[in-house]
């Protein structure tokens, strides 16, 4: 459909769901391994274990990963708590060395049978007093709720932090799967203000991870990870600073000002940043020379915002691939309805997606730039920016970097299938 015909931020009817073979986004195994020196134990049925165990195998993390398979008899007998306690104990006793932390993943079944996980963790902590345990969840049944399994996983990633006195001029960035790109102005501001920024992506060992508990501010850059920041604010009294990735200049300005005020940071020359951003986008528009662009929701948390930015700078965006849009996208949604009414919106999981031709790029002689793996898959292009979940970009400098990447990828072809079928892109470095 075109955006002018889209009635709301959830324009597509739900139904049976297709799954495109674009596997770059991280799953809970990838995310869980960000805690250094941790071990994961998944307690699920065989069908649920299969995906996570092979995720671990593909990322060469089998030595940090174990499973307990639920069978029908465990559900009928009601011995689930015993199965988990005995199973985790057996695993830990046989590991060459006790891990510093263990993430025990329960599944939908445990919620439905009322498994007493509090009792389970109480017992495990008694048996292994030197190991930190945390509860993690593989509960896709909650995927359509407000607190999604992914958001919950990002929250639990920091649940192992022990409360300590807070240090001044130290901050964490929370919930991101990549560090900020080195040129982002928020990093420059922090450095100039004498702040030290911690990020789980840069923690080499468990001690370093635990130092995150001492930071006085947590920076969160996307809605899906807000709950992680909120939980830390409640539990460790760390101040939450929400600076979402945005492509609207006025929103970026407001965020940078908020960061400056909250942490006492010097504010960069915003006008200069805006002018440089405009210049970068103008350069990209010229370089693309009318080459159409498609964007997907895995590439950026604000696909409509990005579409609006590019269109307003003379770059032709033809399709946005997403199944729904967040509330924060509403201003961009309305702007696009008015200024780019023919922009196509395409679902990614709708049942018809299996049958639609994946050759849109052919209409442009193969010259179509996809931003995101799903956009590349559905359009059939070979010009492809492999961007996932903002790829560490933030603020004006993030846009400038993005513009440069677009030019680079528009100018070269890639072997798309071999890239997008890799699970958890970038997880293994």
């Amino acid at each position: 459909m075109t955006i002018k015909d889209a009635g709301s931020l959830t324009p597509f009817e739900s139904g049976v769901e297709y799954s495109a073979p674009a596997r770059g986004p991280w799953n809970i195994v990838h995310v869980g391994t960000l805690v250094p020196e941790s071990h994961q134990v998944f307690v699920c049925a065989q069908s649920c274990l299969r995906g996570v165990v092979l995720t671990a195998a593909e990322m060469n993390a089998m030595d940090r990963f174990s499973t307990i398979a639920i069978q029908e008899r465990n559900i009928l007998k009601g011995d689930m708590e015993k199965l988990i306690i005995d199973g985790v104990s057996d695993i830990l006793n046989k590991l060459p060395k006790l891990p510093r932390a263990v993430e025990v993943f329960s599944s939908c079944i445990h919620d439905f049978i009322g498994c007493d996980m509090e009792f389970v963790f109480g017992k495990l902590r008694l048996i292994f007093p030197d190991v930190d345990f945390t509860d993690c969840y593989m509960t896709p049944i909650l995927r359509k709720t407000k607190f999604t399994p992914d958001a919950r996983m990002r929250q639990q990633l920091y649940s192992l932090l022990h409360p300590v006195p807070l240090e001044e001029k130290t901050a964490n960035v929370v919930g991101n799967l990549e560090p900020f790109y080195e040129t982002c102005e928020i990093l420059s501001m922090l450095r100039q203000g004498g702040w030290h920024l911690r990020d789980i992506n840069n923690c080499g060992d468990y001690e370093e991870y635990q130092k995150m508990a001492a930071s006085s501010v947590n920076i969160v850059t996307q809605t899906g990870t807000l709950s992680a920041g909120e939980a830390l604010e409640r539990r460790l009294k760390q101040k939450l600073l929400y600076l979402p990735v945005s492509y609207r200049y006025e929103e970026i300005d407001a965020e940078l000002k908020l960061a400056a005020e909250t942490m006492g940071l010097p504010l960069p020359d915003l006008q200069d940043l805006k002018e440089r951003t405009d210049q970068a986008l103008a350069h990209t528009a010229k370089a693309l020379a009318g080459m159409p662009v498609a964007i997907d929701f895995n590439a950026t948390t604000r696909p409509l915002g990005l579409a609006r930015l590019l269109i307003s700078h003379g770059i032709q965006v033809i399709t946005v691939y997403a199944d729904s849009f967040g509330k924060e996208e509403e201003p961009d949604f309305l702007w696009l309805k008015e200024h780019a009414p023919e922009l196509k919106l395409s679902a990614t999981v709708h049942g018809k997606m299996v049958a639609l031709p994946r050759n849109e790029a052919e209409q442009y002689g193969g010259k179509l730039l996809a931003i995101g793996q799903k956009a590349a898959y559905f359009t059939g292009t070979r010009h492809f920016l492999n961007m996932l979940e903002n790829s560490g970009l933030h603020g004006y400098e993030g846009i400038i970097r993005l513009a440069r990447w677009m030019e680079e990828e528009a100018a070269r072809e890639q072997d798309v299938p071999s890239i997008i079928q890799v699970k958890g892109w970038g997880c293994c470095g």
Partner: protein
Amino acid sequence: MRQVSRVLSTYTADVSGVCSALYEMGGMVIMHDASGCNSTYNTHDEPRWYDMPSMVYVSGLSELEAVMGDDDKLLRDVERAAKELHPRFVAIAGTPIPMMMGTDFKGIARLLERRLGIPVFGFATNGTHSYVSGVGMALAQAAKKFCLPKEQLTGPGGIQKQIPAEKADGAQKPCVNLLGVTPLDFSVTGNVEALKEAFQSEGYQVKSCWAMGSDFDELIRAGEAHVNVAVTVSGIETAIALQEMYGTPWVLGLPTGRKLLRKVLEAVDRAAATGENQFPLAWDDGTYEAESRRLPPSEEKVQRENGQPDQSHRQTYIIGEWVWAMALRYSLMAEYGYDRVSVICPLESEELFADRLLEERRERIPGVLTAAAGAGAFLEDEDQIEERLKNAELVIADPIYRRVLPKGKVVDFIEFPHEGYSGRIYRREIPVLIGEQWNRWFEQKCK
């Protein structure tokens, strides 16, 4: 401890087995699940996903629907999708949560069948069993539902079940169906093509292959074959179903290696001539015990003349799907003189294998039940496998099994990747295990 895997992987589950079996039949398959089963399936279990579109979906079951036991959304969504996409049939397969909800898959199938006017299957899989059961039930149900009645078949299988015995070794070779063929056991590395070629090059027409590389029209004429060859355990149920429908005898075995290829072909001839099922993986006395093996002296001589050190007395373990692991075992023992070869089948428990597939039909499958005692064991748990491998000197298995080799001991390991176990990770190294190609591969590995 049972059910615990400290370092090992897990096999593809039953629900993926259903999808894999029906993938090429033009139907719509819905995994009744919240999410996850579909991405697992098309990432790790389905090598055809990128290049061969098929209508395999997840229902997107939500918490509220599960708690309320609400099947209406499933019915609505499937009905709408089927009306839009016009599949040949619909199949719905269960996962753990529908098992908890007590979803009535047969009832849903009946209801949808009435509404849609096309065949609808309801498979009460629950994600706690391996793909072997899922593939088995899906292929068998498809055969029962779609295969044409005898009256509509023009070939000899429909009207005349057996070809005359005198012709079995003559110019006219029996036609066969190959049953239990999915990428989960054979991947997409040339095994299916080699399997068909193994029969066709010897004059045996392959009427259909269930279910890779055969058109739907070929599949539904399966009754025209003289003999069905179940090349995996997953093919047994279909073989039994087709025998009940057409009286077609069946052979259980995979033609791995030169000698077993000949033996399987002879078994096909014999089945066609006598109408009796054949089990070429067993020795001549009908058992699988190592002691029953009689290695012809000439082959031992060949081995010595090749100048290779005699490694045939090594305690050898083959881990994998029962039929192809047994076929490898046969080849090692009958062609290479190995005398201590055991199969470990982790795919189903011994009880399940026996109960579900064999026990109830014991009279039809002589000898198979002795397999556990005579040829190896059904071991699902990591501890059991690790314990069993303590005396291993050679292991042929998926590379992931390296992780449970005994410590502090030199054990030869031949990597034999299995798509249904390690998924796509080692796909490029999956060998062709049919006929002489297996011999060449094995001999290369032994150098």
